[in-house]
């Protein structure tokens, strides 16, 4: 029982971080009707901004986190939208998808060139002291990671549903033409979406890098799993990304513990195929009509 609890909580903690990254996919999809295949690298890079703050600028860890967050929001939110999304989007979603793939490669290779190919240690945000929970030694860090991730998702959902700006963002996502007629500043709403995506990616980076270690290749797996999580949960729903992320995190750990460790990497793909066959819109997603 204690082993099950241990594995379940670890899976939830990791899955919550997957969910943060998956929400990014959902947000960008809603704002620009495209898939950001550099999303994994968006999670890899902020950790290096923090390391630059600590090792190059001599800032303390917590100030470096703030520095990393601000730089991430500017570069991965504002600059990404202005320099890549805005000029390329009029040429079609596919073009933009390819551009994000190229951006992902650029970010990965830049991190390798600038900071080396070796993994770097990254300080933990919280102490790793274990606490006893129903007989299982559960890491306080895992619980806090889980709590923060879920808290952010709840706050984001409240922001989108309960505030005027949030509702304007939703209106923009649903129909930008009508939203503009109704007086919504569509460009600003889209910008907000990209800034929120960058902030979420930075948060995911700060939570997961102490365990994953800061390495240029971290985005590959993370981006893929989060993409699958977003599809499994429902690409057009934030709560879908949350469900998908948590589900993959938990199933991955349970499979590795009770079934097979060798094929754990295949599980998300099997899940993806099953969901696409049975419920193409995802577990909690909604069907979208396609204009032809």
């Amino acid at each position, binding site marked *: 029982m204690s082993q099950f609890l241990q594995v379940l909580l*670890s899976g939830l903690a990791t899955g919550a971080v997957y969910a943060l990254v998956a929400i990014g996919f959902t947000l960008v999809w809603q704002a620009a009707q495209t898939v950001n295949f550099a999303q994994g690298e968006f999670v890899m890079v902020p950790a290096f901004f923090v390391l630059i703050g600590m090792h190059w600028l001599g800032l303390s860890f917590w100030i470096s986190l703030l520095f990393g967050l601000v730089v991430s929001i500017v570069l991965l939110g504002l600059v990404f939208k202005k320099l890549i999304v805005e000029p390329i989007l009029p040429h079609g979603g596919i073009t933009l998808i390819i551009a994000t793939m190229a951006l992902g490669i650029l970010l990965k290779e830049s991190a390798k060139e600038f900071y*080396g*190919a070796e993994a770097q240690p990254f300080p933990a945000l919280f102490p790793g002291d274990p606490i006893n929970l129903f007989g299982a*030694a559960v890491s306080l860090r895992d619980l806090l990671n889980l709590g923060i991730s879920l808290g952010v998702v709840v706050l984001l959902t409240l922001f989108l549903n309960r505030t005027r700006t949030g509702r304007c963002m939703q209106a923009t996502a649903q129909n930008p033409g009508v939203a503009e007629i109704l007086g919504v500043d569509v460009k600003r709403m889209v910008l907000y979406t990209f800034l929120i995506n960058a902030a979420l990616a930075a948060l995911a980076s700060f939570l997961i890098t102490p*365990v994953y*270690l800061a390495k240029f290749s971290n985005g590959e797996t993370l981006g893929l799993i989060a993409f699958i999580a977003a599809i499994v949960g429902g690409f057009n729903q934030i709560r879908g990304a949350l469900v998908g992320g948590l589900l993959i995190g938990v199933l991955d750990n349970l499979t590795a513990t009770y079934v097979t460790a060798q094929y754990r990497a295949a599980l998300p793909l099997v899940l993806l195929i099953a969901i696409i066959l049975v419920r193409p819109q995802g577990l909690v997603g909604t069907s979208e009509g396609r204009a032809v």
Partner: protein
Amino acid sequence: MKRHRNRFSVDWEDKVGRSKNYSGLLLAALIALPVGSVSAQTANTVKLGMVGELSGAGAPSGTNWRDGARLAVTEVNAAGGILGKKVEMPEYDTQTDPQVSRALVQKAIDEGVVAIIGTVYSGSTLVNMLVAKQNSIPQFVGSEAPTIVERGNPFVYRTSSGAQKGVPALTPYFKDTLKAKKVGVAWVNNEFGRGGRNVFIAEMKKAGIDVIIDVPSEQAQTDYAADVAKLKSANPDAVFVYMNQEESARFLIEAKKQTLPMPLVGEVTLTEAKVIELAGPAAEGAIAHVGVTATATEVPGIAAFAKSFEETFKRKPTHDAIKGYVGVWSTKYVMDMVGKTDGEAFSKKMKGLCLKVADHPKILLDTCWDDRGEMSRPSFMVQVKGGSPVVIGAVPAN
């Protein structure tokens, strides 16, 4: 007239012919000029091809291997080079991809190297050593999978003992020091990990110790929660951890997070400087058998190497750095003994060769190679204490 014409014709043909000859000579001279200068250049240099994992999952090993080799090349050149010629060492990045490593070994040989220094990852070495063998080029490798010296390749030589020699050195530690009755194994599912795991299980069987849990993991795996939970649940007396550096660090972090209570014992990598740097306090208490360690400063050669490496690269050397260093120096010693760069002669000399520190100080420890290229030399048991690996015992050569 005819004769005159003929004479004229002959003269003309003679002149033209001579002119042609002059043109040919000129052309030959023009072609020969750069070739000659290249020949003169190659005649004064000896090229060693450093083929290593400079990026990808093996980068921590490969970059240290390269830096150790670089330091050795600098020292070898300061000591007069190889056969009195300056040593050059072009570097080739395998990206930790076996197929790329194979292509790069071929490229290095095409570019005129007389020996290959690398690779470190066993999966790569098993693929690329065939190329060096086909070209009769000596190859010093940092790989430790048993299979490397079991393929009858007379041109491949280790720079540290293989797992089939290193892992058995741990048996007395499990049996007599830890007095373990049941143990677990956590290993990375690649050529290196599989080789070590198989030898360990066979050794434990011989020693009458039960292996009650066997946990494989994938290369570049990031989440070890399930692996550690399984080990914790099985509750062995000790766990043998056999993974590459980054994986070892992530495993140790998770083990500390889940308060894994039993001793964690590894072979070589578990107490490497890079692992300690990455795992931080989580590495505290980890134990490993290491073929050679930069912390064995009671050995004068190792102390001098560690000092020089730290001054040059501003960081502590790892086990892989020492292996790269030994690889280059071994090449120099053996080529100087043979008196030429011929691979076949080199291979003959290596069979059963022993290099003593008294005569060859940069070999660091008295070292022998058997007929298969397997290495034998004294080794150490170390434990991480206060953030550094500390020697807790010596193991005689086996």
